[in-house]
């Protein structure tokens, strides 16, 4: 096992995102995380594969020194599924964006997650179409003024975390592009999880949607809104732990921590999907949860395929001669 360094994962190809793009931060985090991931999982670099669709984020594979396939708009989860079924030993990442994953590729995202294929989907959410130069995306808030919605978008946006939970994803995470330490932790958690993983990475598009997530990116605002989820820990956030989440009228609500008894502060239980759904409904200005929303270990698709294959082989080994005579057959003398 070679001890990799961060540089070992850079392809050397000139990176062509806009100056100041959040994608640079994500690329740096992935390159930082990969040596640790390889060491932890006992993987060599050639077993790591990055698959992408189309969009700014989908250029990602070109900048990694691993195997990579930049495919068709929205279809990366399908191609990644084929790769995992063909060779379950590979660590397969899908790099995608809000348009690629939730608009044109919504269907494939749904089925990849519900099948629980061992694919790690990194969805760079910038609430905008960048590569086509600034149209509203399926995550753009209603009323968003863009080139294709000069009077404000009338589309209702999709909530990526709630969508992934609804698809039955086994591990659902959220991170922020410029919070390197946390993002690296999330990437490691994703790599460690055997089944399907959906990571929403809030990513700043400096050209077409600058500041869309300033409430968790601006150092002054972030402490007020960001709730870093800690398994087993109380949901407390804000300056000096000023705020807490409690169950109120069937939803998780933000309160002044001092106003409620300690025991009513909700503790984070990633195994609890219902609670994860409640968490997914929280957003600015109330509270933006970051980290592991939900984790459940269910049978992994490609392992099930292998199981059926070995059971079938044990029951009746491959024999073409017998196969050709398995239906109506007769002999002519």
């Amino acid at each position, binding site marked *: 096992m070679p001890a990799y360094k961060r540089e070992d994962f850079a392809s050397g190809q000139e990176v062509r995102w806009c100056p100041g793009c959040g994608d640079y931060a994500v690329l740096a985090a992935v390159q930082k995380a990969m040596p640790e991931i390889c060491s932890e999982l006992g993987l060599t670099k050639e077993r790591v594969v990055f698959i992408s669709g189309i969009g700014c984020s989908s250029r990602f594979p070109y900048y990694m020194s*691993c195997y990579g396939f930049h495919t068709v708009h929205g279809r990366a989860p*399908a191609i990644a599924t084929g790769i995992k079924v*063909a060779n379950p030993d*590979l660590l397969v990442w899908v790099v995608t964006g809000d348009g690629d994953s939730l608009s044109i590729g919504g269907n494939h995202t749904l089925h990849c997650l519900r099948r629980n294929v061992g694919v790690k989907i990194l969805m760079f959410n910038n609430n905008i179409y960048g590569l086509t130069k600034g149209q509203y995306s399926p995550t753009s808030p209603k009323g968003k003024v863009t080139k294709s919605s000069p009077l404000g978008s009338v589309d209702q946006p999709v909530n990526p975390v709630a969508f992934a939970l609804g698809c039955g994803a086994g591990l659902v995470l959220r991170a922020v592009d410029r919070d390197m330490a946390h993002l690296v932790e999330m990437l490691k958690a994703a790599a460690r999880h055997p089944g399907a993983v959906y990571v929403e990475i809030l990513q700043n598009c400096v050209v077409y949607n600058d500041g869309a997530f300033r409430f968790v990116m601006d150092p002054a605002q972030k402490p007020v809104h960001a709730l870093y989820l800690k398994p087993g820990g109380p949901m407390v956030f804000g300056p000096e732990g000023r705020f807490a989440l409690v169950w109120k009228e069937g939803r998780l609500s933000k309160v002044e921590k001092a106003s409620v008894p300690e025991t009513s502060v909700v503790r984070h239980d990633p195994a609890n999907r219902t609670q994860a759904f409640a968490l997914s409904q929280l957003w600015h200005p109330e509270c933006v949860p970051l980290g592991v929303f939900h984790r459940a270990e269910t049978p992994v698709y490609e392992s099930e395929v292998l199981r059926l294959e070995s059971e079938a082989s044990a029951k009746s080994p*491959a024999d*073409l001669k017998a196969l*050709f005579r398995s*239906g109506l057959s007769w002999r002519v003398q």
Partner: protein
Amino acid sequence: MPGTVQTEEAVIRFAGDSGDGMQLAGLRFSDAVAWSGQDLATLPEYPAEIRAPLGTTYGVSSFQVRFGSVEILSAGSSLDVLVVMNPAALKVHLPDLRPGGILIVNETAFEEKAVKKAGFSADPLTDGTIEGRWVLHKVPMGRLVVEAGADLDLAPAEKSKARNLFAVGLISWLFQIPTASTEGFVRKKFAKSPKVLDLNLRALAAGHAYGETAELFEHRFQLRPAEMPPGDYAAVTGNTALAWGLACAAQRSGRKLVYAAYPITPASEVLHEVNKLRSFGIRPVQAEDEIAAAGMALGASFAGELGVTVTSGPGLDLSSEMLGLAVMAELPLVLVDVQRAGPSTGLPTKNEASDLLAALYGRHGEAPLVVLAASSPVDCFWTAVEAVRLAVEFMTPVIVLSDGYLANCAEPWRIPGPEDLPSIEVRHASAIPGTPFKPYARDPKTGARSWAVPGTPGLEHRIGGLEKKDVEGTVNYEPANHEVMTLLREGKILGVRGRIPPCEVFGEASGDLLLLGWGGTFGSIRGVAKRLGEKGVKVSHLHLRHLHPLPSDLGAVLARFKKVLVPEVNRGQLLKVIRSFYLVDAQGFLYTRGRPLNEAELEAAACALAGGEA
């Protein structure tokens, strides 16, 4: 006792309501025919609705068997015997019964209400529709089976269900085909319900006895066994043969075969069949749609295994972007299109071969790939194997065209020995120390790039749908490079011509008329050419398996004939290609009625063109 007439072949169709058990009747009779040593071809036809309303013309289901002591090339289109179980079946199928043909009707079902529902204004059995044109036998099958099972403790409606076996018994008597295999089947199928078993055996025997005792039939027929080369035979449909061909390809290449597909008529049976073949290394995935199915197959190819998807026309439409990516990424991919009548949803259960131009050209950009077509149910096996071979040798997507007729039609297959099965060589690249890996460096012989698969140390590389720099494989937008790459992709596919054997012309190598066909029309066209030959009308036949690239000697062959007639189950798709490639004034015999080519009409057209007398 009626006398016996020797005959060489016969075409029989069993037709009835969806609930009349016609598929079972046809299959049982086919089995019996195969066991008795005749050559045969079968053609089932179902309604598109799963449970169509009772007694309607669109709920009619049928099964056709052509068998004989001579070589049987197709299921035929003109019937010698038609068995109809209800008025709707009569309405739908009577036009296909040849003049003077035998019509056997289940008289029990010809009640006034049913006759009206089928769209007849009066009872067609008595109003002069049939008299003098066909030989009618009215047999109250429904009543007779109820009587045969009189002492059995079953409801009359249940007893009546055995009427399909009565029909099998009667037809078996008429053609002197032993019923032992049918009895064996009945014993196995109804082993768990002794009363139903008893009833069905009685119905079969009653049908046989009816022929013997009713003294309605002028004579029985007798067929010698066909002269078939010795060996073991299996009856296969095109869809089964296709699945077996894929299993063979996986075995002979030593690779896994990821079979990704979305259910679609008439291709779904292949998905069902491969699910039984996991031990052969086939990994079936039921995808969410055909886009994903083709994508999964391509992903499997990227990972170094065999990626295959099988679909029908609507799925071909959806797969086109993935085919384009496979052309650009230069990865092997096999897509089988079991064609059906279109456009759009069209006639899902009816036959048409109208996706040729879509297969050849249905992608944006210059996206050449290999297109093959299977010519018979058995040929689906060999075409599947060849498609995998070409895909991995040339690192290219390959489209295989089958159709609804081939898919469902069954014929005997002389089972090949291991020595007859081709090997498929798969070569994955490995790193050469000190030499940087160039993903788009090419094999000088085939023009194929090397297949470097994830997991191989030292060959890490990135590919994708963006244009590649020649040799290097990096993203490149230079205009001159784009032209180089466009020509390289085109030239690589044209190079497949080196793998195509010379054209085999049936009949004279030159002359007045060449019938040029492709795909599932092989049997029909060959039969027509043979029959015309026997009548002294010289007609040659060439059938294409390779539709892109076309065989290199095709132009020379076409030039040796004064006239070229292209029979197709579409509006002239190969015809357009031939006319544009070879500047030949070919004509079409075009047929889009949801059925295989009408052989009698084709024969007349070919005969007229060849200057013969029909």
